[in-house]
């Protein structure tokens, strides 16, 4: 009975027939017109061209930026040997005796990113588990947008927040010897900044886990905690890891907060209570000065930017690879 087409109550033809007749009539009109098919009007072609231009523009801009980065980086390495850049941990680009050991900056960046992740992974994952598995729909409808607004707070505000709120607490705990500018304070606010990325993307991944898996786990006598942590979280593994790598790449590229709160001290030390300088903060410092465009200080900007670019690009690629390689296919 369900297989039969519903009939018109007045005894007309089945609706399917009507529909196919209509489709017959409209077939010509419904064909999507292709460029160059001769059917497209002039306006259509103009719009088509304009849309094509806007779509390719951003791609060209990206290519242009990368080309400039490459050319200037090559220029830099004509004057400074490769080994001085990648083989040293001493950085003093603005001193009379210049040293360009980029590891000091990479280290500063890495330390801030690691502190940030140490804050953001537990907070973000707990928030994701709560939103996906525990919160009633109404609570979630309120909390999730607020969390995502957090991602929209200007990062300069976070930098200031680090100085006036986080650093004083750190000094209370570790003593007055700790400077107001330190890696820990900057790292913590960077962590808060990337919590929404981890929470929101992980929650999406967890909600995409089919309901049938949860039911299967409940039917074996799992508590809600066991379902969340032992079934849903592992099943959403690829999405969760991708969200963490994405957040890490955001932390690595973060500029304003670490420029303000990190202190401009390029160094290769393990103490998070000391001031550090990240690649981004160094770029800010050099760009703000009156560096002549022909000088070596100007050229090193591009070499550092190139390093940063390659680093974040690699992380994004890894994130994509992970999310594809470990994705579970559910029906």
């Amino acid at each position, binding site marked *: 009975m369900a297989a039969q087409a519903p009939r018109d109550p007045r005894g007309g033809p089945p609706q399917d027939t009507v529909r196919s007749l209509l489709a017959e009539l409209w077939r010509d009109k419904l064909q999507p017109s292709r460029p160059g098919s001769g059917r497209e009007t002039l306006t259509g072609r103009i719009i088509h061209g304009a849309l094509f231009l806007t779509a390719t523009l951003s791609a060209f801009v990206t290519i242009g930026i990368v080309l400039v980065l490459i050319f200037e980086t090559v220029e830099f390495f004509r004057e400074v040997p490769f080994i001085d850049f990648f083989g040293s941990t001493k950085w003093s680009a603005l001193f009379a005796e210049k040293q360009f050991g980029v590891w000091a900056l990479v280290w500063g960046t890495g330390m801030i990113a690691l502190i940030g992740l140490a804050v953001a992974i537990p907070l973000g994952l707990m928030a994701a588990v709560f939103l996906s598995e525990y919160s*009633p729909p109404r609570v979630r409808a309120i909390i999730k947008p607020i969390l995502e607004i957090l991602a929209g707070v200007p990062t300069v505000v976070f930098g200031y927040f680090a100085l006036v709120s986080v650093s004083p607490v750190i000094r209370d705990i570790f003593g007055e010897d700790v400077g107001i500018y330190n890696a820990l304070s900057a790292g913590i606010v960077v962590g808060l900044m990337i919590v929404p990325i981890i929470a929101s993307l992980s929650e999406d991944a967890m909600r995409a886990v*089919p309901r*049938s*898996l949860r*039911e*299967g*786990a*409940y*039917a*074996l*006598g*799992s*508590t809600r905690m*066991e379902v969340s942590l*032992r*079934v849903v979280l*592992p*099943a959403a593994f690829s999405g969760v890891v991708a969200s963490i790598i994405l957040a890490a790449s955001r932390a690595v590229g973060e500029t304003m907060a670490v420029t303000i709160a990190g202190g401009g001290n390029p160094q290769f030390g393990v103490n998070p209570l000391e001031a550090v300088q990240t690649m981004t903060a160094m770029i800010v410092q050099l760009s703000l000065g009156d560096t002549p465009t022909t000088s070596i200080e100007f050229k090193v900007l591009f070499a550092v930017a190139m390093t940063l670019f390659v680093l974040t690009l690699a992380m994004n690629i890894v994130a994509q690879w992970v999310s594809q390689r470990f994705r*579970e*296919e559910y*029906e």
Partner: protein
Amino acid sequence: MARNFFTLMRSSAPGATAAAEPDRATAPPPPPNVKQDDAGGGVHLDPTLAAVRHEITEAVDMALQLRNVSAFYGTFQAIDRMTMPIPQNRVTALIGPSGCGKSTLLRCFNRMNDLIPGARMEGEIEFEGRNLLDPNIDAVEVRRRIGMVFQKPNPFPKSIYENVAFGARINGYSGDMDRLVEDALRRAALWDEVKDELDKSGLALSGGQQQRLCIARAIAVQPEIILMDEPASALDPVATLKIEDLMRELAEHYTIVVVTHNMQQAGRVSDYTAFLLAGEERVGRLVEFGPTQEIFTNPLDQRTEDYITGRYG
């Protein structure tokens, strides 16, 4: 039973003492038009509910005893005052057209309905002298004793081994896990096919194998009852036959309740059959219950006869 049913009670729950006395007195008094009969005991016709319950002639214990079980989703009543037994170590089939409340009833047995917001159950399901529907009974504990297999195979995205070990692990099983896994897989008739690739993902198996993996997973928790919600409806005929054979074998150790759309299947695998039907207002009611052979050869209700002869829905 090895385990004491008292473990099902939250120890501090109020009213636990009162409920500890497995007396009919604590159950809500049945409506006057419903006759109480534990194990059948002759044919009864309820004036309003009009359920026919055939006599159970063999000597068999009852794993569950339903009394006036109703279920609601919000204000919608899905099933209405069902009263029937579920015999122990037998296969009981719940049959009926779509929307008659078969799955809803099945999900009452292990309190899966608790997971649906707004779902509510009334009446009594007696299990070892206690009422499963009592809010003081911990649903998580109930599900450890009453396992479930779903319509679509739903193995976890873990290895075959971990799929089977999962339930035992969360229940704090401390014995020989390898042996438990092998045992469960053997009972689910899957061991010979997977014994060399236990590390392979459960999702890499075929549909029929996945479903047997899900059965093994349920068995590994060592339940007393296994509920199956149309376990073969997503499978091809060969895989279906394997699942059916398996149900017959499992009935030696477990009580099985199976929901099925397929009357031939009910006829092949079940010892007892309950026919459910929803009327105009879409509330599911029990029409007839009894030994499968009786239901299929000598149905007493015209609607049962219409359904099993294919003149219905």
